[in-house]
């Protein structure tokens, strides 16, 4: 069965307004007192048994944060966030120290099972049918780190990764076990003073993933982190740090969901990537936080700072994102092209429906010689949503031979939504070659009628056209996730026409 047909069926089975991941897990949790103060920061650090340098780092960030103001330049509109009305730490109450996956609370295991995340160490054998002429799907393994509210509950395939020399563990553990690596790289891509939300994260981050790939190693499997917000009134502040040492390669995927709640919840993550000489990181995101209901009530505020530093020559960082969730998205995965001949890529599908607001894009900062970057952004706005692409491409004075290609396409469904493109381009040397293309289109009545005359329903027709529109970007995702993303896209646009 072709994926499109499967998408179409999936859509049929879903009721309008149904968020598949909106259930809540009943579980006892251990929380920090509500609100934010130095004590909260100390509480979190103590919970994680952190060394003194880490606590100091956090406190410095916290003090810095107190002097900062929330940014307002994005094209998003939301009521003021009361930072004292949030829990900054929530952990499933542990029964004892866990030594194997079998000791994880069965309720949590069930949650991940429901979400379709394999925490038991089984290779993903269910391949998807390859497209005609395409390669057969291999029996691939994916190592998963699962983060439930503020803590990582399980990381799979540790042994196998260790044999390859790859470190993949919760960042809280890495701080204790590999302090030299963490200290060397943490905050070097996104400094603690970077921006309001990143600084907040630096003070209160609770968990996230840490990856280190040693020189010359090609990571033997996909790495994946699955983030789940469960607790009410709880913010999630995860921190991810990935280092690809000289000549190494790793592909990493993150997925996110949250229960359906009437109140808004804050998610302020920081992701830092570092590639040394000749290394490559491919980072993919399928973001499906709860977007709020059809009246615009509830949903996640997703204020995320993601940045990669191509520190070494000939290194490469590639971001691929499929953004369908969150009430508000404020997110600009970026690349600093520091090493000579380094390259950065940003492939994005951002879908907004209902009352969602998306302000997302990328920054490609060309510093090294002969650096290149590529931006392919597909924005789809439906319902009463607003969808903005905001991107910066800059070339430093010394970045001779810098090249960028940008293509931003927007698709409008209906006439109550908006799509906006805000590109910033700065070239400080005359040898830079920057190209920018942008289109905005609507799904026309003629196209819909053509499809419907061939037997497709209105919704099937929209799903088909949209999947065609985003195809270039979907192709960048690992295959299993491409299929999942394709389904998600159709579900997100449920009820958008009519």
């Amino acid at each position, binding site marked *: *069965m*072709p994926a*499109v*047909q499967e998408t*179409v069926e999936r859509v049929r089975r879903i009721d309008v307004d149904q968020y598949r991941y909106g259930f809540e897990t009943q579980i006892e949790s251990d929380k920090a007192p509500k609100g934010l103060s130095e004590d909260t920061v100390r509480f979190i650090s103590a919970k994680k048994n952190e060394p003194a340098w880490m606590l100091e780092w956090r406190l410095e960030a916290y003090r810095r944060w107190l002097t900062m103001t929330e940014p307002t330049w994005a094209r998003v509109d939301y009521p003021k966030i009361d930072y004292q009305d949030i829990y900054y730490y929530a952990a499933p109450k542990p029964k004892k120290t866990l030594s194997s996956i079998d000791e994880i609370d069965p309720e949590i295991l069930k949650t991940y099972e429901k979400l379709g995340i394999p925490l038991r160490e089984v290779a993903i054998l269910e391949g998807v*049918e390859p497209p*005609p*002429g395409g390669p057969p799907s291999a029996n691939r393994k994916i190592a998963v780190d699962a983060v439930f509210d503020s803590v990582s509950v399980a990381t799979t395939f540790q042994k196998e990764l260790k044999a390859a020399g790859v470190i993949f563990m919760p960042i809280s553990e890495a701080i204790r076990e590999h302090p030299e690596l963490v200290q060397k790289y943490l905050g070097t891509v996104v400094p603690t003073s970077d921006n309001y939300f990143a600084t907040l994260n630096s003070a209160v981050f609770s968990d996230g993933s840490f990856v280190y790939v040693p020189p010359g190693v090609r990571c033997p499997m996909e790495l994946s982190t699955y983030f789940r917000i469960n607790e009410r009134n709880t913010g999630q502040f995860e921190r991810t740090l990935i280092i690809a040492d000289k000549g190494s390669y790793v592909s990493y995927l993150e997925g996110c969901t949250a229960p359906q709640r009437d109140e808004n919840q804050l998610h302020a993550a920081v992701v830092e990537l570092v590639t040394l000489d000749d290394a490559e990181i491919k980072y993919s995101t399928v973001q499906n936080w709860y977007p709020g209901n059809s009246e615009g009530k509830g949903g996640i505020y997703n204020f995320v700072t993601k940045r990669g530093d191509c520190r070494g020559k000939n290194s490469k960082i590639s971001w691929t994102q499929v953004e369908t969730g969150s009430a508000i998205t404020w997110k600009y995965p970026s690349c600093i092209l520091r090493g000579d001949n380094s390259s950065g890529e940003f492939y994005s599908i951002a879908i907004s429906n209902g009352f969602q607001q998306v302000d997302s894009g990328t920054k490609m900062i060309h510093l090294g010689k002969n650096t290149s970057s590529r931006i392919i952004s597909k924005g789809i706005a439906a319902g009463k949503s607003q969808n903005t692409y905001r991107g910066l491409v800059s070339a430093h004075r010394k970045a001779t031979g810098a090249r960028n290609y940008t293509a931003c396409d927007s698709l409008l469904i209906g006439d109550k939504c908006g799509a906006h493109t805000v590109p910033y381009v700065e070239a400080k040397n005359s040898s830079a070659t920057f190209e920018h293309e942008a289109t905005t289109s609507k799904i*026309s*009545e*003629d*196209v819909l*009628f*053509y*499809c*419907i*005359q*061939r*037997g*497709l*329903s209105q919704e*099937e027709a929209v799903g*088909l*056209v949209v*999947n*065609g*529109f*985003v*195809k*270039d970007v979907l192709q960048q995702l690992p295959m299993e996730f491409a299929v999942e993303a394709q389904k998600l896209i159709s579900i997100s646009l449920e009820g958008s026409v009519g």
Partner: protein
Amino acid sequence: MSLLEVKDLQVRVEEREILHGLSLTVNPGQVHAIMGPNGSGKSTLSHVIAGKLGYEVTGGQILFRGEDLLEMEPNERAAKGVFLAFQYPVEIPGVTTWNFLHAALNAQRKARGEDEISSPAFLKKVREVAKSLNIPQDMLKRGVNVGFSGGEKKRNEILQMALFEPAVCILDEMDSGLDIDALRIAADGVNALRSPERAMVVITHYQRLLNYIVPDVVHVMSKGRVVKSGGKELALELEESGYAQFEDAA
């Protein structure tokens, strides 16, 4: 029972009446040609039969095998066997022709309560059909009509007709934008699909197309009505003397 019966059809578009009581009876196996000048309502008729939005039916009815067609959604009509070959087939970037046809065929089969056809079985079928119509396999892998020439677009319509096996095919100005060679190829495709069970309604300005697709019945439309019906010789007569003689009859 006749296959398609249009009875005293009256249609408005934005307060303006386009069809003023049009009647037409099409039986299985027949090819009907509908000829007429620009603005006579030919395309409106084809759109209303297929169920396009934006037309208000103010009187009359359309029966398909005795069932009220106007009560059905356009995709239901397709599943029942009503096919419209578009004058200007649309382009759908990023969706391969292969995928589009598979999705559409399965949607129709499902609506009829039939089993879906698997990818390998479909691939085999579509390849056979394409081969029988001399359509290159390469076309199936390309985006639907994207970058197709006028002739390729029309052949894609005929491919779909062959694949979906409809009971009634309405060909809306199939000759527009085609040179004489492309026209002949397209017409050969249509002729290959003529059968005792299937009916075709060929809408055209020009007699030229009817040299290749020879009709059983020819209707002349003018100002929203059928003003004259006859055999295939009527088309030749029109070629000689033009539409002017019928303007008054309307």
